[in-house]
């Protein structure tokens, strides 16, 4: 090989290396999957499609869009699909190159066809998390920093009528909590807002956080619980937004919290799962996984199910948890652990008929159903292609 060839080869390899290092190669998924279960039907938003399938058999009912039209692309989709009457509501999210779909779609539960869409307009951005509803109005948080209240029963310009719009100072990447005619919305402008759901007027704002809030607050006995990117977890009075307690943690909190009578459970981006005392915020125990915990833990009959970006699913029997002096719980405390899914897990699982449905982030297999008691794999979605019979057999 002469010098010229070597030089061309080196330059080509260097160029390829630069481009591959800089984002070339396989297009990474960018949107967090979201799973909802209604009866035996599962609705899964996963990258470029929303799927409806039978949670018990894995049989696909429909996918939206049925095929991707490059001239008029939909999605990617993220957040938990919202069942609203006879439609499923889901927002378009951000693609890996930053391009986004700014529409909120309503898909027929029966057919998987688009029924209506809401376009927030030129200043609209991605819908990273789900919309919520009070049964009549849909409240959808957008990446442009606005919360939209729309009434699908009324039409205006061929789309659901906009009732009001509440604007904050930065992105809204988490769904609001609706309770008793009020909405509680965390924002990237470091604030948590309480909004009157009827008028869209601000009731109060909590300004003690020093970094974005990207979770849906949890509400119990008049207290809101949520974490923020300032590596802290807050308890705030829902009536007036006054701080009740604040507990520092190790990393950004981007996981919604789950509660029982006396504890609250959530994870952080450094991979720690925490149990805090609901009344005081004191840390009861923590468990270390090997990567970020983004998904909300699921609690059922004193068993806590947690998924981590380290690709593992963990089940803890809360009655048997024993921590050391520092509060650390070791691996032996797990009831079971499934390490066979081999894909990063970012989204909240759902329980259905003794199975734990776990959405996968970057995989051809979109979800696994595990035995909730043992963690053993039972079913995958989509179902594997049927084995073809070999001629002569």
């Amino acid at each position: 090989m002469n010098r010229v060839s070597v030089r061309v080869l080196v330059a080509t390899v260097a160029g390829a290396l630069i481009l591959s290092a800089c984002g070339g190669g396989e297009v990474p998924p960018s949107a967090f999957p979201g799973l909802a279960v209604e009866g035996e039907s599962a609705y899964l938003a996963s990258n470029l499609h929303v799927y409806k399938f039978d949670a018990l058999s894995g049989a696909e009912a429909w996918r939206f869009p049925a095929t991707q039209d490059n001239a008029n692309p939909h999605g990617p989709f993220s957040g938990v699909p919202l069942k609203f009457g006879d439609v499923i509501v889901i927002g378009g999210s951000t693609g890996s190159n930053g391009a986004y779909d700014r529409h909120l779609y309503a898909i027929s539960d029966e057919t998987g066809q688009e029924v209506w869409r809401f376009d927030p307009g030129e200043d609209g951005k991605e819908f990273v998390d789900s919309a919520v509803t009070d049964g009549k109005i849909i409240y959808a948080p957008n990446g442009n920093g606005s919360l939209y209240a729309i009434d699908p029963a009324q039409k205006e310009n061929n789309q659901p009528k906009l009732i009001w719009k509440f604007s904050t100072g930065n992105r809204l990447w988490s769904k609001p909590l609706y309770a008793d005619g009020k909405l509680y919305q965390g924002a990237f402008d470091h604030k948590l807002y309480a909004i009157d759901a009827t008028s869209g007027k601000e009731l109060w704002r909590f300004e003690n956080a020093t970094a974005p809030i990207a979770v849906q607050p949890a509400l119990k006995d008049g207290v809101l619980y949520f974490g923020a990117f300032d590596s802290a977890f807050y308890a705030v009075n829902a009536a007036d937004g006054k701080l009740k307690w604040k507990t520092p943690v190790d990393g950004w909190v981007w996981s919604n919290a789950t509660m029982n009578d006396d504890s609250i459970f959530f994870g952080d981006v450094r991979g720690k799962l925490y149990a805090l005392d609901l009344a005081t915020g004191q840390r009861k125990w923590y468990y270390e996984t090997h990567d970020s915990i983004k998904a909300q833990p699921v609690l059922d009959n004193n068993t806590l199910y947690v998924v981590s970006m380290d690709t593992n699913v963990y089940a803890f029997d809360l009655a048997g948890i024993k921590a050391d002096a520092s509060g650390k719980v070791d691996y032996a405390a797990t009831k079971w652990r499934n390490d066979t899914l081999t894909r990063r897990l970012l989204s909240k699982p759902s329980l259905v008929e003794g199975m734990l449905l776990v959405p996968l982030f970057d995989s051809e297999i979109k979800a696994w159903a595990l035995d909730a008691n043992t963690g053993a794999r039972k079913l995958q979605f989509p179902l594997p292609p049927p084995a073809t019979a070999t001629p002569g057999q």
Partner: protein
Amino acid sequence: MGNIFDLLFVNPMTNLLLLIYDVLFHNYVLAIIVLTIIIRLITLPLTLKQQVSSMKMAAMQPQIKAIQEKYKNEPQKLSEEMRKVGFNPLGGCLPLVIQFPILIGLYNAITRTLAVTPFSLLELGKYIYGFLPNLSSLVPVNNVFLGVLDLGQPDKLFVIPILVIATTYFSTKLTTPPSTDAQTKQTNQMMSMMMPVMFGFFMLSAPAGLGIYWIVSNLIGIGQYYLMKPRLDLAKAQHAAVAGTTGSTPTTPQAPPKPKMPPPRSKVKHSTSARVAKPGSEKK
């Protein structure tokens, strides 16, 4: 491997970029420019070494060709002679190889801090140093430049891809050493056309913020070239002179080599401080 690379290069640069962003009034483009300048300054000795080496190799082309021709049937002797004249094909590559992880680290730090997707922001959260808690309050960075350009989106007006093509073209053109060899010249010409087009094409679908980095990096590279030009010209002149004298040896009929006489040591030195051999000295 990826983790070590992140630990050594990407994580420090990510945090440094956010610190600079904080100091520079939350102006992300300014932060990119300043960090790129800092990195370019740190790697300047390596850049200089690489360009001087490339110039040397280019100036030595006639000499090397003559030696290759002369010893084409004696690979052992050929390699000895090449070594004697100071031919080192890795001389230009090695500094480049060392710079490579630094530049890729910088590139990844920019991609990471732009955090245009939910997943990339989640990844960013893992790498912000815990002992610098204030950095978390800076995310997401303000990615709107001059009120119109969203740095997290591909530039729909194509201004950034066009500027990337233009600056890459000039940068490649300037930093590619001239060659007397027709084939090498042709290859260089092809590369100077292909590289800008390749990067421009990439920028059509990449976030504009990455394009800003490429443009700034190219402009700094062009500036560096002009700053280093006197030194490069000196190195080139020295080595052209050396190559001119020693390179004529195998083909000049009036100067047949004396097989039993080894060449003087002074003629085979090729550092920038090497003395130029006097014409005809090989006969002595």
